[in-house]
């Protein structure tokens, strides 16, 4: 296993080993989305929430992905920082905008879901607030990365920040929970947690897997783009030096 991992850590080998992977995963994701969406629309209405429960199939997987991608970002940053793997750095860079996108999607769909269910577009509920802070973490990472000119230094500074964020995320989550119990949210109609029946759980899980496959397709594709970009930059430098 370690040999496989570190073998793949060579950008050249990674590129040739995963050349077709984005296309394959993309097709798989499209198929799973087709099945997932069909299941979502044929799922029975919730006895409390009616049709709006279908928003869940878009919203919940996006929130899962937002968290999962941040942990991927943290692990990639760790490898980039400690072992100075160029590939891990490219992976971290590619993961950040994707994670921010999923988190943003979770926030927007959550807001759309909140309107019919809670009667408000935004509620300072513990979960919504922690997801918002997670989104801010992504923004900070991307802002730091974008504003340092030296590509390598930007990558390492951003990696330190990603690791600090990884340690902080559970603390933020805990503090927001604490804050929320302090404030005793008013008589908002809470999402009753009816034990989820299989006919709702199946589409949710299918959609979750579809999101995940989509993420891996996009992630690997943008790692490829990142590596090609670096090669192109190196070629330009070489040509400039030769001239």
């Amino acid at each position: 296993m370690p040999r496989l991992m570190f073998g793949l850590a060579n950008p050249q080998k990674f590129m040739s080993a995963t050349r077709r992977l984005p296309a394959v995963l993309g097709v798989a994701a499209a198929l799973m989305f087709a099945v997932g969406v069909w299941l979502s629309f044929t799922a029975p209405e919730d006895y409390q929430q009616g049709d709006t429960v279908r928003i869940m199939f878009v919203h919940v997987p996006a929130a899962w992905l937002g968290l999962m991608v941040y942990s991927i970002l943290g692990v990639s940053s760790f490898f980039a920082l400690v072992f100075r793997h160029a590939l891990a750095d490219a992976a971290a860079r590619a993961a950040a905008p994707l994670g921010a996108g999923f988190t943003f999607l979770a926030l927007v769909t959550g807001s759309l879901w909140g309107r019919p269910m809670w009667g408000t577009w935004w509620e300072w509920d513990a979960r919504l607030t922690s997801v918002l802070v997670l989104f801010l973490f992504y923004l900070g990472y991307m802002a730091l990365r974008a504003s340092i000119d030296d590509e390598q230094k930007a990558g390492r500074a951003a990696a330190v920040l990603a690791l600090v964020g990884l340690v902080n995320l559970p603390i933020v989550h805990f503090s927001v929970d604490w804050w929320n119990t302090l404030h005793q949210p008013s008589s908002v109609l809470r999402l009753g947690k009816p034990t989820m029946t299989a006919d709702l759980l199946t589409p949710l899980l299918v959609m979750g897997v579809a999101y995940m496959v989509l993420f891996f397709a996009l992630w690997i594709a943008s790692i490829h783009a990142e590596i090609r970009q670096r090669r192109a930059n190196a070629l330009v430098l070489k040509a400039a030096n030769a001239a």
Partner: protein
Amino acid sequence: MSGFLTLYRRELDLAWGRGGGALLACGFYACVAALVPLAVGPDPERLAAVGPGVAWIALALSTLLSLERLYERDFEDGGLDLLALGPIPLEAVALAKGLAQWTAGSLPLALATPVAALLLGGAPQALPLTFAAALLGGLGFSFVGSMGAALALGARRGGVLIAVVVLPLFCPLVIFGAGAIEAFAAGMNWTPGLAFLGAYSLAAVALTPFAAAAAVRNALS
């Protein structure tokens, strides 16, 4: 140890010296506090409802002001290179800078916080707690903030960048600090909030110097 103390005194001198950074932050703090009634209205009841919380947010924002120069001035004039070559490890340098930032920046602000809270309709009984929370929270603000300042070394528009990087990390401090004051005002048990505030601040003192030192090494390499 004597090297550490010398460094700490140097940082204090730089913070207090020309420009009076600490007084500037206090002035900013007073301005923000004065804008609140203008925006919310002078009604005492409404002010009292938001006052302590706003005083706390203004404190968080004011600590951001002096951060930009903390590492950058040494980075620009080459002082940071000398510090990196010197006998004191960079982690200790980061600790000295954080402590100096706390004494020179947060201490005056902590003295100003009860005054602002009082003006914004806070209860006089809550003032000692407000001061204690501002002092303790200031430790966290200073250390997390100075780590952000180290990370932003060599970046364009460092000041705004530090704010974007650091403010999400301020969330727990704002929650626990304002929470403790609010719990006190509501007659509830305020010690958990203060204890969590202290825990986060002390963890920041223990851990952020390592991240700041890594960031400085990276910027100097």
